[in-house]
């Protein structure tokens, strides 16, 4: 399935941007960096953003399946654990700010400066 990569067409993307901007005032450049991550994630699933959010909110198992897919997808996309984590955070932010609560874990070095 193909879909238009235009944030104006999807209420979930609009809502995500509005909520994050209301709090953190991200720059246009930051959104230009983040939106392609979302489009790429959606493409990997063959679904548009609104469909993904609707399914995640309607059915907990769908949400968990999306999170499993996110881990695999980010591992395939990124080079190194930090880049993988940052990609996942973009998508987690999309889910969380649309009301789909997902578990977040910090970097290993959150435990201690030397890492564990």
């Amino acid at each position, binding site marked *: 399935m193909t879909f238009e990569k235009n944030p104006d067409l999807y209420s979930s993307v609009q809502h995500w941007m509005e909520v*994050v901007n209301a*709090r*953190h*005032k*991200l720059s246009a450049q930051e959104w230009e960096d983040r939106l392609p991550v979302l489009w790429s994630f959606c493409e990997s699933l063959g679904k548009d953003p609104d469909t993904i959010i609707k399914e995640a909110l309607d059915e907990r198992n769908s949400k968990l399946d999306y999170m499993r897919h996110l881990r695999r997808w980010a591992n395939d996309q990124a080079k190194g654990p*930090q880049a993988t*984590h*940052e990609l996942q*955070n*973009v998508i*987690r*932010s999309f889910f*969380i700010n649309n009301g789909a609560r997902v*578990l*977040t*874990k*910090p*970097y290993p070095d*959150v*435990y*201690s*400066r030397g890492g*564990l």
Partner: protein
Amino acid sequence: MEFLEVVGSRRSIRWFKTWEKVPRDKIQRILEVVRLTTCPGNLQPWRAIVVERDALDEQTRDGLLGADNWQGAHTQAPVWIYWYADPSVTRPESFQERTTELTDLGALPPAYGWSKEMIEAAIQRGEVVQAGGPAINELIHGMPAEVGAAVAYAGTVGACACACLAAVNEGLGTCLHMIAAPSKQDRVKELLGVPEDVLPVWVQLVGYPAEDPEAGGQRPRFPFETTFFERSWGQPFPRDEEVVSQLTKERLLQEPMPKPGRFDELKFLSRMYGYPE
């Protein structure tokens, strides 16, 4: 720090300097405060297990964090104090032992009717206490186990509030979390070696704040007049603005949240620790 400023400066800190260790003497000072906290009948139902995160093996650490749903503040705080309530201290014989001790030491005055005989009669036989003394016969005699558990729990919750103030007084940040999701309480007990019949209360996270210690300002509270009454329910206790002004000078009352820059602070903390915004 003065008492009023300690109370006014306390916040639930949710971002900690995860790399900065808490000196052991500061933890002991918190525990020493709790040891002297008020409680009914001097029952002292609280029990605490101090856990230094970085001294744990990985499996135990992740088990405890997983039980609390990997909450950010929990992962970051270097010290976790697990507070439990021991309901066995509220058994009639324990209550009798504690109140008798207080009578022997002169805390409970004979002038009000306190004596070993009165305590024994009221607690063991449910005899009515004479006017001037507390109706402990009704409270204790034949008390269901659930009431004892509630008393132990309530006493420990109060102790946790004092533990938070004690942490602030030491210049630390602190926050109370559920020990675990209800379905995972048993797992935490297993990891910490806690007896089955002891009640989980809170886990107190302790460390140095990574966020501004004011954490965005004082939290909103219900209006004074709709919270505190005089003479009858719903009749506001008048709030004197001069007292408010004085308490503001004494730092009990501080700037309400959100203070300017709070959301920028949250954005940068999220980025620093690798969380979504």
